[in-house]
């Protein structure tokens, strides 16, 4: 099964709002690759992720997840297929990291079931693969920003979805942690997981992604590979500031023009 996502002529507006957040949006997210969604604040990136997830229902249009619409999945099947690392997630009541990570196994348990030995093993394997086994006993509220993001990713990997959505996974992280998270995204796509993330940093997108989506005013402005999408003209149009794109030794870099 090809874990791709398709959206056709999608419209969405929030309850009691009088304008569309998503307007006639058509998009194809290729399966097994890393896609980055770029766009100014308030352009509907998070809304789009929530539509993909099925948390929000479109007013009109069609969404298919690995070839099926949301209605063709049960709640549990859907959560076994598509996972989310949201932009904000505080962990209430100070669960330990291990207790929090076990929640990643919920899609495989009914509401009355407790996680079993197999679930514990999967969580332990996941933390070992991310090299964060030392965090297991820690209270989740006492983690640093970088540790917290790694724990959120571990939680979604314990969920074992074919499609993974991440809302600004590198925001508020130092360079070392950004590097680590972006590397993880690439590693996941090598394992065949379709990865979609939003970011405000074009260089982070270039570092990790091989498919690029520019959003503007609730619609897709551009989509495609690096050379066609990440151009000075497109980015200057998107962010309304002068932007340069430099390429050297096979590396592309986006630079804001100096104002001085």
């Amino acid at each position: 099964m090809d874990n791709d996502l398709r959206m056709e002529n999608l419209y969405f507006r929030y309850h009691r709002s009088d304008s569309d957040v998503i307007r006639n949006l058509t998009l194809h997210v290729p399966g097994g690759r890393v896609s980055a969604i770029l766009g100014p604040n308030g352009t509907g990136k998070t809304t789009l992720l929530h539509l993909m997830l099925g948390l929000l229902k479109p007013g009109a249009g069609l969404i298919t997840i690995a070839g099926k619409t949301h209605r063709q999945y049960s709640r549990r099947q859907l959560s076994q297929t598509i996972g989310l690392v949201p932009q904000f997630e505080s962990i209430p009541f100070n669960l330990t990291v291990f207790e929090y990570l076990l929640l990643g196994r919920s899609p495989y348990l009914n509401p009355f079931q407790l996680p079993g030995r197999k679930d514990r093993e999967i969580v332990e394997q996941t933390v070992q693969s991310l090299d964060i086994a030392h965090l297991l006993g820690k209270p989740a509220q006492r983690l640093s920003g970088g540790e917290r993001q790694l724990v959120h990713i571990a939680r979604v990997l314990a969920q074992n979805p074919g499609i993974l959505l991440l809302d600004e996974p590198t925001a508020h992280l130092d360079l070392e942690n950004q590097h680590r998270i972006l590397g993880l995204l690439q590693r996941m796509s090598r394992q065949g997981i379709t990865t979609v993330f939003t970011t405000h940093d074009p260089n982070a997108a270039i570092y990790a992604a091989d498919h690029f989506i520019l959003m503007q005013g609730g619609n897709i402005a551009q989509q495609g590979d690096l050379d066609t999408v990440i151009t000075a003209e497109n980015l200057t149009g998107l962010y309304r500031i002068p932007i340069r794109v430099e390429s050297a030794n096979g590396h592309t870099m986006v630079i804001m023009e100096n104002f001085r």
Partner: protein
Amino acid sequence: MQSRRFTLMLTLLAAAVLLIMLASVFIGRYPEPFWMPPALMGQDPLAKRLLLSLRLPRLLTALTLGMTLSAAGSVLQMIFRNPLVEPGFLGVSQGAAFGAALSILWFSSHPVTIELSATFFGLLGLLTSYWLSTRVRFGGWILRLILSGIAVSAIFSSGIGILKYIADPLSELPEITFWLLGGLYRVTWQDFVYVLPFAAVGLVTVWLMRWRLNLLCLHDATAFSLGASLTRERLILLVTIISATAALTAISGIIGWVGLIIPHIARRLAGASAEKSLPVAMLLGGGFTVASDTLARTMLAGEIPLGILTSAIGAVLFIYLMMSMGWKARHHG
């Protein structure tokens, strides 16, 4: 917390609760203050009757009451992600109190009438709060429900004020007042049988869904992405455990602080995961309420209203918890 240590803790707690219950049967003011020798059971028919038809149903009701209030407190605090929520909010306590006062004033003071009226208005409080929250036009659903609960409680409590004002100060007013103070002094087997089905459904549902509670207290998007049917699962939990609370409040009157403070102590002892803290809260709440009720009927020649006692002890515990938390915070600071 490791599961072997947890099992040990749970076993010790259960043993302690059993011990409290066993002692409580023989503690009282007959034949003389504080202790009835168990041997008296065989000799004195009055002692036997007192024990079997007064102390035993009262004891079991106190246990059920404490377990239900603590479970309800745990569930509400987690679902609303707010450690200051207690089972009476959402208009349940004030609704039940209004129903009881209304019955005393206009229908009849017969216990069954009071219970039915109190349960009805307690549930009405819950449903009105919920309905109102769907009509509020701002805020997340937690804020909307909390605000609606406050408004509904205020309406019922002003209703209680009116009823007290027009009640006969010699006959009806004392009865209303004593009911509002809360106590189990009138409990019979009939009352226990009345609350049992409500309490059983509530406690069993919450017990079965105890691990799921952890999932339901995550943010909506995350909980949804992990397969939770948010509205349905939250409603199942709220309706079952709050119905149990309403039915018990109908018998006991307003018993404050148990549902607020016990979940905090349970999380302290067993950790934040509801898988462990919920069973601990149920046992602690049951034991605490049985012990408080035993004090309430034994300490003085007259009965001390249970609600006064639980509030006093609960507030002292709360102050202690706050101060010891401050100490901990400084040391980790």
